[in-house]
């Protein structure tokens, strides 16, 4: 699994580097700056832009719904489905519908839901969740997928991407034509005209929003961008960052209802914790994310552990800052520690989200508690953390503590190791011993440098 993840991530990164090179490094940095500034502008004027988008969608014959949480979206979608006696739904890949676990709710009501993005279709068949936000089946090899198709679809399937794709095409084409409702997310919502922007390579986004008689789009309130100039900037950034294409095969622009299209268009605007994120001025920039997945491709931790290890809908570096804020630092704050803080994510991020800074900020919120939740860390550990911050902040105290440590460890020491530490540090030695403090680095460094200098001199 790790091998498949690494191979795919590397391919995406190489192709990205190629198209960015062609675009010109300097122009690319200007484009990133523009993307960052316009996303931040949209977020800091979110109320005005939301009101503008709502007005335009209604004027174009669409319906606008507001949902504070997952349950409210479930209720809204189920209501629309029952009004139209919908039994089958085709869906475009959408992270927000993963976030609110919409499929389970619909299927519990006896509605059949087809994920139509190839990767998402595979993951749905396997009963898993996506391991990457733009390449959901990144963790699976073609052999595993062929076995899955044989087992679940009862067809003969060879481990050949082209033949496997053809099987999915045939099956899903029929469902596109039959479905009573299409559900999509939205890559962007243009406030100026109330236009929903959908980006897909496979064409399933167009199928789901053109063929069924009803289209429901579920969009997080943070997806809003001011105008069409902004849309051009964002689309240029998005395609290059996702997979190293200059442009995605299909960009669809939907404003309300149209002649010959679905009879009804419903836009569901979802909060689900986003207004809480907006409140924190440091962590606010998390909401600028455009879900390109580049931070995952470049992250050394993600590449080793894969998307599922994060145990959440949004994996990788962005997931490590988004998840704790969406579901609470008490439950998911640990994710903020699942990073080496190397900074590769913020360097590649098309909208320049300062992910390492936000990680550090969330670590602090986790230890100290925040406005929404009290700290989940034992008091003793908090005292130790505070004390070590004080000690490590002063060279003299640090040196003194090092010397003291060597003396204090004597009763615990057994040869070169400390087998068990006293509480609350005992978790460190739960599964392996701690190496005893030895020698003195400063002294060693002093003598070593002296030796090096004299060594160099003797060479001359």
């Amino acid at each position, binding site marked *: 699994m790790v091998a498949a993840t690494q191979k795919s991530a590397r391919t995406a990164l190489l192709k990205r580097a190629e198209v960015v090179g062609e675009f010109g490094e300097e122009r690319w940095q200007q484009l990133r700056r523009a993307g960052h500034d316009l996303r931040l502008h949209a977020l*800091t004027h979110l109320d005005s832009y*939301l009101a503008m988008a709502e007005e335009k969608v209604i004027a174009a014959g669409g319906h606008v719904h507001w949902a504070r949480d997952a349950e409210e979206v479930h209720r809204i979608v189920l209501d629309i489905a029952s009004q139209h006696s919908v039994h089958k739904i085709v869906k475009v890949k959408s992270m927000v519908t993963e976030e609110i676990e919409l499929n389970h709710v619909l299927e519990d009501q006896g509605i059949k839901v087809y994920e139509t993005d190839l990767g998402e279709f595979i993951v749905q068949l396997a009963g898993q969740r996506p391991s990457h936000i733009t*390449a959901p089946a990144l963790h699976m090899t*073609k052999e595993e997928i062929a076995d899955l198709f044989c087992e679940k679809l009862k067809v003969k399937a060879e481990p050949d991407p082209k033949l496997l794709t053809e099987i999915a095409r045939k099956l899903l084409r029929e469902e596109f034509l039959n479905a009573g409702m299409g559900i999509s997310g939205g890559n962007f919502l243009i406030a100026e005209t109330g236009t929903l922007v959908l980006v897909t390579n496979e*064409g399933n986004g*167009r199928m789901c929003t053109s063929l069924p008689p009803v289209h429901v789009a579920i969009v997080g309130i943070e997806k809003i961008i001011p105008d069409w100039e902004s849309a051009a900037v964002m689309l240029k950034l998005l395609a290059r960052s996702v997979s190293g294409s200059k442009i995605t095969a*299909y960009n669809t*622009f939907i404003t309300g209802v149209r002649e010959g*299209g679905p009879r009804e268009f419903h836009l569901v605007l979802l909060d689900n914790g986003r207004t809480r994120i907006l409140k924190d001025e440091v962590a606010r920039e998390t909401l600028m994310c455009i879900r390109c997945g580049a931070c995952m491709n470049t992250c050394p931790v993600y590449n080793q552990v894969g998307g599922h290890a994060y145990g959440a809908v949004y994996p990788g570096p962005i997931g490590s800052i988004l998840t704790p804020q969406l579901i609470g630092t008490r439950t998911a704050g640990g994710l903020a520690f699942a990073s080496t803080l190397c900074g590769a994510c913020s360097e590649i991020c098309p909208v320049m989200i300062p992910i390492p800074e936000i990680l550090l900020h969330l670590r602090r919120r986790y230890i100290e508690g925040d406005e929404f939740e009290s700290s989940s860390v034992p008091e003793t550990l908090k005292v130790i953390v505070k004390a070590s911050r004080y000690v490590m902040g002063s060279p003299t105290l640090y040196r003194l503590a090092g010397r003291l440590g060597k003396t204090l460890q004597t009763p615990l020491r057994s040869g070169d190791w400390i087998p068990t530490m006293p509480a609350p540090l005992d978790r460190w030695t739960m599964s392996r011993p701690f190496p005893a403090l030895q020698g003195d680095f400063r002294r060693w460094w002093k003598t070593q440098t002296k030796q090096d200098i004299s060594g160099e001199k003797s060479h001359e």
Partner: protein
Amino acid sequence: MSKNNLAREEIFAKVRSALKSFPGLLPSPLPDSARFEPRSAEVWDKEIECMLNEVTRLSGHAKKIQGRDEFAGALEELVKAEQVKTAALSDHPHYRNYGVVDLLQRFGVAIVPPDSDKRRLAECDLGITIADAALPETGTILLRTTQGQPDILSLLPRVHLVLVPPEALVADMHQAFAMAKGDRHFVLVSGSSRTADIEKVLTLGVHGPKSFHLWICD
């Protein structure tokens, strides 16, 4: 509906309290740093060449066609190569001059009206559309959705042929958007339907057309 209003009011209240802003406040203008200078067009021939190259890079088939005879020849070749038996085509005055319908009928192709039922269009071999704008930088065409040229005409048939009048070429997305942003629906199309979801291997023709042909016709 009252529950919906309640949710709406609460979300707006939370956004305003997070931003410390007030109801009815108009957004301040976007900072200059949030704007990006659009690409400027090169000389005419270079733009056409760029368009053709980019479409080829996207695994599409692109060519420049001059005059009715060359058009008729290319169409006959396409019908043979792609084994086209049925075709649906956009109703666009510009191309009535080419006599596309007559030509296709002469090559033994049955014509399906563009506003046919979705199942009928899905069974069609070929869909012919006219580009409203073309972007050379990325090999992209813009198709505005109308009754005579519905969205699914470029989506459901197995083969998609788009005819591009040379005057449709614009330098960047910004100009194309300025033209179409008042529309209820339009699409940007770049090459065939594609995926790389299985081991990052590029595979054409997932849900939309399996092959994409673009002709710049004088």
